């Protein structure tokens, strides 16, 4: 193989924890040819990012390469000197991080950061590099490519910033780019723009790429080959099509199967039933900006209403109105037919108890200084007045319900739990109040697919056992398909469309619902190409412009 660009042989990487070295990567091989895109998938903790960084000869602090070799175009990266690496990184190997917003320096204009690489590496002069940046911005279909570089990072949207970062990685025309989950933090509609832009530019310059993600459908669009990682070991590797059609290993198959989870439909709602929560005609604003306008929907007992829309559509604001954190200007919220005071401070303790919330990011939803027992025990004591042994017993029951043995987890701190376990503790805390209605705010979007599926199944089971009602805020339509009974689609603070799930996934739709539905990546490797053909290029550029407002 004369055109091999990157060769990794039996790579072993260790990370230090509590004075001992624990293996992170346990002997992985990897081959990448020029112009080839390799998809790297696996759950968090599988070592995807560590492997991606090691492909640049770099390890994070407290992590070391303990064996094996990384060869980039004949250069041994493991033993290369700091000077040699400095000449390679940024020039011949570039890196695109997950959060462009966190990776750009907010104090400098985008183009100043863009031109730094080429100028430092003596690839271009500053003025040449600026012209080149504009050209790259144009190719990445950024709106107003002549001006956008002269803005500061906070002045452009997340999707645009991610493309600007890709342009920056391209600035020296590298042979290899590592993409570390570049679209994970973006909305589905934005994700498409970024994906197609990345794919085109990688093709145009014949750049090789390692594309790290946990989203199978995304990797299916981007990669020529896919490698599946599990706990630092390779599960299998094959061409994208082969991998999607005939996965060999059970683990890969289980990843594929996650997307198929769907709850059986429930019988239709009887008209005479009083809904558990009834939102009628609420309008709310932050200061003078209106964020919700005339929003109405009902949530019935034992049912799940999914509220969908991209960020900024008012989904979470609606939840804040229901909980009373943001009293609406107009309209009212009823709980079992009884009007709730708009401000949570005016609500009685039992009204507060009935409405509970589960948050998107379990890390910030659990007090890092409290043990699991304290976190779950507090609502029990606060609402139920249980103390001592009775409280402990109830906590243990709840831990049982979320499938986490009390003997093991009772005294743990949140930092000693995995992401999925933290989310389960969040669920247990909500259950501890014995509510009849729970708001789930993007509860699965920060989790891996397998873990997310576990959470969804748990929520579904709890709903059946306790006849809970859920308001399920999400931007992921696969989640909607899995768990919802009814769907409310929101855009710019208004309800665009609502109805039973079975109706929603069947045409005709409101054009926005259509756009949302069509933007959800499918497992078909040709999906993105087909979609782009249908929509036409101009359209996507416009969508980018619109987001700026």
């Amino acid at each position, binding site marked *: 193989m004369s055109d091999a660009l990157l060769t990794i042989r039996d790579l072993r990487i260790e990370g230090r924890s509590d004075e001992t070295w624990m293996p992170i990567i346990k002997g992985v091989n990897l081959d990448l040819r020029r112009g080839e895109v390799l998809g790297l998938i696996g759950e968090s903790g599988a070592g995807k990012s560590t492997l991606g960084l090691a492909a640049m000869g770099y390890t994070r602090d407290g992590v070391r390469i303990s064996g094996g070799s990384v060869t980039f175009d004949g250069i041994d990266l493991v*033993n290369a*000197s*700091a*000077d040699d690496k400095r000449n390679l990184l940024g020039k011949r190997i570039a890196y695109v991080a997950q959060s462009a917003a966190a990776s750009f320096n907010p104090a400098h204009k985008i183009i100043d950061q863009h031109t730094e690489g080429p100028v430092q590496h003596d690839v271009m002069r500053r003025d040449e590099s600026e012209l080149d940046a504009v050209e790259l911005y144009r190719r990445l279909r950024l709106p107003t490519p002549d001006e956008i570089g002269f803005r500061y990072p906070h002045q452009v949207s997340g999707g645009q910033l991610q493309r600007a970062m890709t342009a920056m990685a391209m600035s020296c025309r590298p042979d290899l780019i590592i993409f570390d989950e570049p679209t994970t933090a973006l909305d589905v509609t934005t994700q498409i723009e970024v994906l197609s832009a990345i794919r085109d530019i990688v093709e145009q310059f014949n750049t090789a790429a390692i594309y790290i993600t946990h989203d199978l459908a995304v990797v299916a669009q981007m990669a020529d080959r896919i490698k599946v990682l599990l706990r630092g070991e390779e599960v299998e590797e094959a061409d994208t099509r082969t991998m999607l059609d005939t996965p060999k290993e059970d683990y890969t198959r289980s990843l594929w199967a996650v997307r198929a989870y769907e709850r059986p439909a429930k019988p239709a709602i009887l008209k005479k039933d009083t809904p558990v929560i009834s939102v009628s005609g609420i309008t709310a604003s932050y200061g003078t900006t209106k964020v919700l306008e005339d929003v109405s929907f009902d949530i019935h007992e034992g049912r799940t209403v999914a509220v969908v829309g991209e960020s900024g559509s008012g989904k979470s604001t609606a939840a804040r109105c229901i*909980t*009373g*954190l943001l009293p609406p200007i107009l309209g009212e919220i009823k709980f079992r037919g009884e009007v709730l005071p708009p401000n*949570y401070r005016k*609500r009685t*303790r039992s009204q*507060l108890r009935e*409405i*509970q*919330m589960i*948050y998107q*990011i379990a890390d*910030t*939803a*659990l*007090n*890092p*200084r*409290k043990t699991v027992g304290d976190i779950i025990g*507090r*609502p029990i004591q*606060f*609402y139920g007045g249980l103390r001592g042994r009775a409280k402990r017993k109830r906590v243990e029951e709840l831990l049982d319900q979320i499938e986490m043995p009390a003997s093991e987890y009772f005294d743990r*701190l949140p*930092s000693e739990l995995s992401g999925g376990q933290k989310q389960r503790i969040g669920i247990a*805390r909500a259950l501890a*109040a014995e509510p009849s209605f729970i708001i789930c705010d993007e509860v699965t979007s920060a989790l891996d697919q397998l873990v997310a599926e576990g959470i969804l199944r748990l929520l579904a089971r709890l709903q059946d056992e306790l006849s809970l009602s859920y308001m399920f805020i999400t931007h992921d339509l696969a989640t909607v398909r899995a768990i919802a009974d009814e769907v409310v689609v929101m855009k710019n603070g208004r309800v665009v469309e609502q109805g039973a799930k079975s109706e929603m996934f069947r045409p005709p739709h409101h054009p926005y619902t259509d756009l949302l539905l069509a933007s959800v990546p499918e497992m078909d490797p040709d999906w993105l190409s087909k979609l782009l053909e249908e929509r036409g290029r101009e359209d996507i550029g416009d969508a980018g412009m619109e987001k700026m407002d």
Partner: protein
Amino acid sequence: MILAYLLIGFLGLLFLGWALRAAGRGLIGSPYFRDMGLSVAFGYMLAVALVALLAWGYWLSRFAPPEIAPRYFFLRIAIEGLVLFALAGWLFRALGRTLGTAGSRKVFRAMPVTAAFGILVILLYAIVAIFAPLLAPYGQDQVLATANVVPGGDPALGGNPDFPLGTDQIGRDILSRLIFGAQNTVGFAFVTTCLAFLLGGTLGFLAAVLGGWLDQLLSRFVDVLMAIPSLIFALLLMAIASAWAGSERWLLTLYMVVIIAVIDSTRVYRLSRAVGQNIVVMDYIEAAKLRGEGLGYLIFKEILPNAYAPLLAEFGLRFCFVFLTIAALSFLGVGIQPPLADWGTMVRDLAAFINYAAFAPQAASPPLLAAGAIALLTVAVNFVVDWMLYSSSGLKE
């Protein structure tokens, strides 16, 4: 001329650094030397040069002829002190690792020497402060027969074995006054700092949680207080307080504690409000609010445990500042009232002796004893706080 010497020294060290790196590359060939920048190599050589210089100074202080040796007396004390303290800290840690319960042994095992030293010093100060009347050979206000006895207890140099650290200008035993000073200065500073934290911390968190007009009101009030130069403000208030206190001296000391606590609580308020605001936006605070929790629970059970680290760091620093403010006020005559011994006052009273430093170091040391007592405690507190910060931030990972 001096510039030329500096330049030669700099270039020489740079060359030595380069040589070190070249030698390291040639002989050992480890990646560490390969990737070493010239500036790092220069830093190593600079450190070596400084250590050599100190060693030479120490040698002079011990073996040089008597007309030169006294110049290096304080250097000798500093080096010997440093070695002694490091040794004491190390021994203390070794002791902690072998004695005590399994839990305490684990704490000591993960402890750096600096923290062990800090804990040892704080413990010693606490013991001295508590048992001062038993430990001190004389009373703090007891005027003895001989004034201006030189420390060291060596009659040849004007000392007296009865007064190992000498006596001051009016013949009070300096050792006894230092011991009582621990009680007065450290005790008052500690109480004042605690009071400042109680006040500033509570109000700061309250402002962070409630926001709105209360936050505005408190913050603007604090801004006004902070706008006035703190020492002048304290002086002004002390002047008023002394009028109120009349002849009751203990009352004046109480006023001093309250006044310094209020002035310093503005800084604590600022910090705890800023820290609190970062914590208040967390979802677990929102969850607690929606549960219907009261303010007290929010502040003391949800926010405070997450604010320990920055508050502790501030406590160490604030304690030292309070200490110095008390010393400054005492210096100006409105702080801790004579005849109570106070380190700040002692430094001021004995300051004149420093003029003898060049030729009779023993005679010059009395003001430095009190200053050293302040410095040692300050350093010890900060060592301990640093370690606590480090271990508490490690918990988060």
